């Protein structure tokens, strides 16, 4: 069972730690499919990413209430419905029931960034759901596998990204790592083990 608690250590609120998390994000966005360790090992990865990225000028949707109310005060971001939010936090194990913003032709960058909490990320094929990734930032192909990620997410993502440059960017996060699948990446879904 997934440990439902989202942990937060005091050090993640320091600018230096957020900088390090951000560096990790830069790496993961530049090299899609590369599993990056979160710089703060005491804070759940998806929360560390949100702390590093969000502020009062962007919006966050947390429809499954994964974040405690006290955390919202410290994030200092604007809560929003999932259809309009710039960032959305969700449990990857549950099937997608979402209509995220995929941007417009004039402003494709307004497409949502979706953070999915998953069980475990594997750089090999030992996990349940296999994903073969190719495209910009990936030399030929790379394969990862994920535990507790519902395959409906990948199907939904393909639909949202079918009219490139419109689309969404996915951040798969287990407790201590994250991997990015931006809308530029092609995904071939393998068998569930």
């Amino acid at each position, binding site marked *: 069972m997934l440990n439902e608690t989202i942990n937060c250590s005091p050090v993640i609120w320091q600018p230096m730690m957020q900088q390090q998390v951000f560096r990790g994000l830069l790496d993961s966005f530049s090299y899609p499919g590369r599993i990056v360790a979160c710089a703060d090992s005491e804070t759940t990865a998806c929360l560390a990413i949100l702390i590093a990225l969000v502020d009062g000028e962007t919006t966050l949707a947390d429809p499954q209430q994964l974040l405690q109310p*006290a955390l919202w*005060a410290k994030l*200092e971001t604007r809560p929003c419905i999932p259809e309009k939010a710039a960032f959305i936090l969700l449990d990857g194990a549950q099937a997608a029931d979402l209509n995220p913003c995929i941007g417009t032709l004039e402003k494709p960058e307004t497409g949502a960034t979706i953070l999915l909490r998953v069980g475990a990320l594997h750089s090999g094929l030992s996990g349940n759901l296999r994903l073969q990734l190719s495209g910009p930032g990936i030399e030929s192909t790379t394969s990862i596998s994920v535990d507790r990620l519902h395959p409906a997410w990948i199907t939904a993502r393909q639909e949202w990204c079918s009219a490139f440059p419109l689309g969404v960017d996915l951040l798969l996060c287990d407790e201590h790592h994250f991997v990015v699948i931006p809308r530029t990446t092609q995904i071939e879904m393998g068998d569930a083990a």
Partner: protein
Amino acid sequence: MNIPRNDWPSALCQLNAAEIKEVAATLSRDIEVRDVVLPQAGLGLLSLTDGAFHEPFYLGEIPVARAEVILKTGDGREVQGGTVLVDDRAQLARSIAILDAVLSGKLPDYELAASLVERGNQLRIQKMNERRQMLAATRVDFSLLEQEDDEDAE
């Protein structure tokens, strides 16, 4: 002390920042201080309505520092404190937020905080008085102009 809570920050900001921080540290030494939000120093957009058509516009940006804390005493009492300042010092805002909690909740030794506010308020009053003196001294008395006209007419 009968200075309203909404005037405490502007009174305190007349004083030396080091003194405010020291008193806040002293008064919160035996109390647990929790940050509800991180003390922040950033910018605010100053919104005005124009004098001609009362349409909103932004005059420019001002430095804003703010903090919100919860103080918990040894006997379990919790008091909230907070402040927002036109200033760029986040830690000063945090100290004033602590004093805001101590004073509003009358926590132990709150008299120290009260005397700071009173002293700051005196400085504030003095500053306002000096401005008024400048205004009064430069006030134009148009009635004198009329007297002269009357004399010319005679």
